[in-house]
């Protein structure tokens, strides 16, 4: 056979967990594949709880995909161990992925030792969801949601109704990363920090949670409820207020049979520190990827504000400051989450974040079950974290 052969597009294998057909990734893949002939995205949906496990298997066996979306707190574990492709040079040349247009928190989650190993795909954070109908029924003004911890507590007390199995407030303190994700805003609002868990501020934050459970304002089941279950209790009318991420908005819209609204997370009076936790997915290119260039092309494509605009349809906030969704779905929620994102802090980034997180999970559960007083539980956690931070500070 002689003569030139039309170049076959190179396959870029992508792993992602997004099953909702409305997620921006599906439209993005389609448009990308149609728009050029160099690369073809070959996507595989990996169930989210298996994503990290599957990626480790792939790394261990030496056959990695070209591109993966990874939950942001675990990225540092992978980048610090040299399992990801360093994207610094590519980012430097890129006209779309420009570090300074990204929110600080999301961008930081992809950095390790000043090198760029991940580009944020989307961002999310927590806000306060409340049942406006219940507010009205209990004589509270739904236009004035709680702004401080004290107001939150007062409102929760007024809203709880044991006869109807209604709790005032719902949150997740499950023995898993998401429990920590929900606790960190309170820790930071109290003036505490992950590297100072034995300080009184941290104990105050945890006591705030533990007391709510002890006083029956929040259910004892919070220590076993994952975030979506907290939202479920809210949607079923068993919790008048709850911590809630924007990814829940499509479900809230379809399934909550009452007027729900959002508010910024209350702050601690006197400290007035606005804080929230940062969640979201990052694009990473595993080291050894056969088509790293194609993967980065797709990252750039997906980082285009036009595509990121679509993210909000499934409650994904853009990680970039230059993206404002015009005429968004759920405008009230959009405004709140967008504002809250400004105070969202990245978890870590730290290569041993999972160990740190596990220590905090234990402390939360000890305090909430009453096994230990909050201060003692946190002092234990601080003791476990200390050698980890001595090796690599936060």
């Amino acid at each position, binding site marked *: 056979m002689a003569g030139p052969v039309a170049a076959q597009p190179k396959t870029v294998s992508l792993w992602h967990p997004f099953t909702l057909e409305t997620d921006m990734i599906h439209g993005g893949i389609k448009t990308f594949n149609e728009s050029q002939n160099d690369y073809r995205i070959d996507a595989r949906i990996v169930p989210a709880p298996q994503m990290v496990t599957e990626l480790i298997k792939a790394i261990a066996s030496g056959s990695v995909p070209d591109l993966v979306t990874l939950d942001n707190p675990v990225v540092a574990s992978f980048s610090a161990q040299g399992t990801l492709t360093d994207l610094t040079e590519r980012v430097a040349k890129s006209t779309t992925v420009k570090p300074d247009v990204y929110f600080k928190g999301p961008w930081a989650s992809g950095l390790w030792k000043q090198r760029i190993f991940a580009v944020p795909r989307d961002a999310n954070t927590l806000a306060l969801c409340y049942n406006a109908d219940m507010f009205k029924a209990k004589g509270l003004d739904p236009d004035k949601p709680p702004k401080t911890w004290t107001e939150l507590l007062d409102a929760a007390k007024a809203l709880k109704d044991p006869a109807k199995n209604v709790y005032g407030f719902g949150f997740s303190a499950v023995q898993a990363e998401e429990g920590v994700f929900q606790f960190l805003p309170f820790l930071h609002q109290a003036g505490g920090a992950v590297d100072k868990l034995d300080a009184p501020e941290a104990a105050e934050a945890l006591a705030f949670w533990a007391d709510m459970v002890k006083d029956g304002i929040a259910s004892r089941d919070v220590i076993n409820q994952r975030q979506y279950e907290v939202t479920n209790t809210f949607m079923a009318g068993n919790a008048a207020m709850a911590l809630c991420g924007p990814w829940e908005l499509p*479900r809230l819209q379809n399934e909550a049979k009452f007027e729900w609204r959002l508010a910024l997370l209350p702050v601690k009076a006197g400290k007035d520190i606005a804080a929230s936790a940062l969640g979201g997915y990052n694009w990473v290119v595993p080291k050894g990827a056969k088509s790293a260039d194609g993967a980065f092309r797709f990252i750039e494509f997906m980082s285009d504000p036009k595509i990121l605009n679509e993210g909000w349809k499934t409650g994904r906030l853009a990680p970039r400051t230059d993206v404002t969704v015009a005429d968004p779905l759920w405008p009230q929620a959009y405004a709140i989450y967008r504002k809250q994102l400004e105070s969202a802090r990245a978890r870590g980034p730290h290569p041993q974040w999972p160990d740190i997180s596990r220590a905090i999970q234990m402390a939360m559960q000890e305090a909430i079950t009453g096994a230990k007083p909050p201060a003692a539980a946190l002092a234990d956690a601080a003791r476990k974290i200390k050698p980890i931070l001595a090796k690599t500070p936060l």
Partner: protein
Amino acid sequence: MSLTLRRLGALPLGGWPVTVIAALGVGIYLFPIYWMLISGLKDSAEIFANPPTFVPRAPSLAAFEYVFVRENVLRYLRNSLVIAIPVMVLTLVLGSMGAYAMSRLRNRVVDVAIVVVLLLQVFPEALLATPMFIIFRTLDLLNTFTAVILATTSKTLAFALVILRPMFRQVPVELEEASFVDGCTRLQTFRLVVLPLMRVPLIVVGTLCFVQAYGQFVYGLTLLSQQELQPATVGIYSFVGAEYADWHRVMAFSSIFVLPILAIFLAMQRRIVSGLTAGALK
């Protein structure tokens, strides 16, 4: 009164009244399954409603429809069957040979073999999946049903060996000796005398192996990266996200998932019962 009743020395009960009691008991036991079915018909707010609703307020087939239309359920179920049936056959072939040998040989070799077989079962698949991946990549079998079939059989085979061994022991040695006297070789005796007697246990074990293979998840996920090849369990698990879980869809999918094997099992059950009345093991 039936023979079975007398031989088990049971209470002098029988007939339809017992059936009613048994049906009630089974009904209560399977309540969680009913819960699963109706959860697929509820919306997610109602799933968590308090007090719980025993009959869906506004039953909707939306979740079932979603699973069927969007998730290509039939393809998933076909993949699961294409994996589970060969696993069952392979397990029965290797398992009946091994269990027969274990039941007839009595020495250290068998003891060691049994310990080895049991020990090889201990690690959860999740921890074995990485090295399994390496094996099948070396064999160049990744993304083939063969890989999943071979890997899953390593799980069901030990089960078959352990369960079939005592059952093979029930076959009287005298029958075999008679067969040898008639001039049959051991292989012929195994095929023509022993195996037919073991029909019922083989059906039971085969069915259970089939169900295990059908419900296998980890190897189906790890060894098959192409969605077109993945079994239904992978489809079910993909609804369980990091941030949300579409439980009514998981439940709808699970209901659909269980129905075919339930049908197969009940059909098998009838064979077992008829095998019994025919005195298969007598």
